[in-house]
Structures are given as C-alpha cells and as structure tokens.
C-alpha cells in the first residue's frame, strides 16, 4: 500500500491537468450491497475521475447514497449491511479486509446531509481530524492546518475572529462549510458529499456549490443529490441510478442535454411514474 500511495502523490503533484486527462481515482467493480436480505445495490461498476465532481442522481431509494457510503466503507457501521465487489483506489482494493477502514476514512472525507459540526469550538472541529491522525506536530503547525482548511472552505474570513466559539453557533450554511473544512483538514484525496445542501436554503446552497467548484481543483469529489439542477450545476460527470442499478453514466452536459437511456431522459424531464 505504501507504494500505491507514493504513486498517488506523484500523479497528484503533476499539477492540475485539464479535466479530460484526469486519471481514474476510484474504480468500483461489480458492487453489490445487501441490507439483511434486501439487495440495495445491484452489480454497479463505475470509474470516478480525479479532480472532478461526479454527481449521483436518481429517485429516492435508488441506492445512490448507499453506493456513496461504499467508497469510504461507512456501510461498515451499519450492522446488517453487506458489501461485495471491489473498489480500487489508486490500485488498492479498499474492500479488502486488510484495509483498515479507519485509515481509509482519513483518505476519503465525507460530508453529510445535515451539517454536523462537533459540539466544540470551530478550531477544535477542524483540529480534531489532524489530531487523531497525528498530522500536526505542534500548536503552530495545527494553527496552520486549521487556517488552511478554513481558507479552502471559504470560511476563514467569516470565522477567523471567533475560532474559539462553538461550531454549532454558526448558521446552517456556515456549519456545512465547517464540515467541509473539517473533512479537508485531514488532507483527503476523495471527498464524498451526501446531499450536502438538502438542509440549506438557496443562498447557502449556492455558496456550497461555489465551494465545491473550487475544491474540484484539488480533490476527487463525489456528490449525491436529489436536485437534478444541482447535479447539472456542479458536476462534470453524472451517474443516474434507479432501483439499485446504474442506468447511465457520462458527462453531465450530455446527460442533461442528450441522455442515451430512455429512463434517464424520463427522469430528467420529469416524466417518471
């Protein structure tokens, strides 16, 4: 795994190539997910590009969130969930039992539907991850990590004067950006977002979308959204899920102007049902 990671850092450091030449970051092969007896995901294979935003859309219950949670093995925390298939990240199968999900999750950040800042200070919210992973070796270094993360999340200017204030005191949109900053702080390679704006109003949503667009330059971002408009706005690639299956996957522009599959077309144009 050591070698893999090295490989990774190399491709990463080769600056921000254009999106077209972006290499595959996550390669999912034949993923099935069962909740107890119920099959939630059926044989999904999908390649997710680095340094771009991939959106998962589909009607509720289509399995898009479930699939997203495979990528950082959050399904492990659900007792009855069973995941089969392989997910390669930089060549290593993360579903391999030898992979420690704890380490994996430090490489694959996640942002949830409802903003969930820890009931700590803004500073500690950000510092939490680096601290448990030992990423900063002193107060000064930690300060730097915190500032950088907040800057990247576009929150620095708004909170720099009140870092010791509790994170829960921020507005909804700010909280969500704080959660994104928190995810960034452990220097992940992939950031998963599970309907990150569904609890926010249009303005806060727009701000998050703007942020996502900025983050795209450094991270591989996967976003689940039930708003097609949002998928259209923020993503470069869109995957359409239906009944636990992947129906269509391709460039967002194409999906929204000229989808190949009838089901996709029906869903996008509001003809389902």
């Amino acid at each position: 795994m050591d070698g893999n990671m090295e490989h990774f850092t190399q491709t990463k450091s080769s600056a921000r190539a254009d999106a077209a030449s972006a290499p595959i970051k996550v390669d999912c092969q034949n993923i099935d997910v069962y909740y107890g007896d119920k099959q939630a995901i059926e044989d999904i294979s999908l390649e997710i590009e680095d340094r771009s935003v991939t959106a998962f859309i589909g009607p509720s219950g289509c399995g898009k969130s479930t699939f997203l949670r495979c990528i950082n093995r959050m399904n492990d925390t659900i007792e009855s969930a069973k995941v089969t298939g392989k997910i390669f990240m930089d060549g290593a199968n993360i579903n391999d039992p030898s992979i420690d999900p704890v380490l994996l999750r430090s490489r694959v950040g996640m942002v949830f539907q409802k903003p969930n800042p820890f009931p700590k200070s803004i500073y500690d919210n950000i510092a939490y991850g680096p601290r448990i992973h030992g990423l900063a070796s002193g107060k000064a270094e930690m300060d730097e990590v915190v500032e950088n993360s907040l800057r990247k999340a576009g929150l620095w200017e708004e909170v720099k004067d009140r870092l010791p204030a509790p994170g829960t005191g921020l507005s909804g949109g700010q909280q969500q950006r704080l959660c994104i900053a928190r995810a960034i702080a452990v220097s992940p390679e992939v950031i998963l977002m599970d309907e990150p704006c569904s609890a926010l109003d249009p303005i806060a949503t727009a701000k998050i979308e703007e942020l996502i667009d900025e983050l795209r330059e450094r991270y591989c971002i996967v976003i689940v959204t039930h708003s097609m408009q949002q998928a259209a706005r923020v993503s470069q690639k869109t995957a359409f899920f239906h009944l636990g299956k992947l129906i269509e996957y391709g460039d967002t522009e194409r999906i929204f102007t000229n989808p190949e599959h009838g089901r996709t077309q029906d869903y996008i144009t509001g003809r389902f049902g």
Partner: protein
Amino acid sequence: MPDHIVTAFTDELEHLSANLLRMGGLAESMIMDASRAVATFDLELAREVIKRDRAIDELEVEAEKAIIRLIALRHPMAGDLRAVLGAMKLAGDIERIGDLCKNIAKRCLELNGDENRAAVKGIERMSRAVSHQLQMALDCYLRQDIEAAKTVLDMDDDIDDHYTSLFRETLTYMMEDPRQIGSNTHLIFMAKNLERIGDHATNIAKAVYYMVTGEATTGAKVESRLADDEGEQR
C-alpha cells in the same frame, strides 16, 4: 415518450408545436400565393400576401414568448430542452420565410406586368419547389423524422440550381432589353428570396435533426455547406 407528470408542461409543449405548424402552414400558403401573384400579376393577391405576414409575425411573437416562458418557468431538460430551442430556431426561420414572401409580394407591386414570361415561369417553378421543400421540412418536424430531414437537406441543392439558372437567364433578358432591367432586377431578387426561403426550410430540417438526435445543427460540415448557399455561385 410518455407524458410529463405535470401535464401542463406537456400541454404547453404541444401548444407550442401546434403554433409552429400553424405558422409553417401560413408561410407555405404565402409562398404559393406570392408566386401566383407574380405569375398572374395579381396585385390584389400580392397586397393580401403582404398583409398576411402580420399574422405570422404575431404567431412568432407568441411562440417566442411561449418559449421564454417555458425556459424560465419549466426548465426543460434533455429532449424537452432541445425541442424548445429547436422551436425557437423554427419560429425564427418561419418568420423569415414570411418576411421573404412579403418581400416577393412587394416586389410584385413594382412589376409592370409585361416581364419576360420565361423568367416569371421560372419564379413560379422555383416557388413550387421551395414550397414543397418547406412542406417536407414541416412534415418532418411534425413527425420528428430525421430521415425525411436528410432528404430536405438534399433538396436544397436543386433549389440552388434553379436559382443559378434563373439568375443567368434573367441577366440575359436584361442585357437584351435594358428597359426591363428594373423589373428584371426585381425578378432576380424574388428568385434570391425564394432561394433564401429554401435555405430556411433547410434550417428547419436541421433544427429537427438537432431536436431528435441532440447533434449540433451547427455541425461544421453541414454548416459550411449551408453558409455557402448564401451565394449563388460555388
């Protein structure tokens, strides 16, 4: 394609397309009437054609409004979006066809009635071809038929040929009888207008092609060919 869950959306789309077809029908009749007015030197008819353009213009205004409304309020996606954008092009083209017909009718008023019959016949023949092309184009819009659309594109070559020969012919008449230069020039412009109507019919076919396949109307190859149609020589 099944209906939208929100039936009002389907209704609006259908209403738009019906409107366009109505416009197309009007334009078609204008082409025929304008050419008949030229052929029979029927100034009444010519004046009527001129008036009729107003109807098309109004329909276009309405169609454009409906389109803006659809885009602003319904956020059409995928096929729907293409249909709406295509309709926008269509409306523009049909409106232009109306204008061109009106122009033919207006020029008809400038004629003196004793123009070279052959040239007038040529105009009539050409207008028949153009009208047929438009009819085909509208038909392929109605049926969303890309095969038919391709035929329409091919038909445009014939019309261009028509125009070129008419142009040459009229030029000859002009040289023969310089007194006729004024009215013959009008005939040339009429022919040119008909040729332009053909181009617009072609555009309609291209728009249909785009609507159905999602492939750019302005695809380099087709585009360049059509742009060249501008001039009568190649």
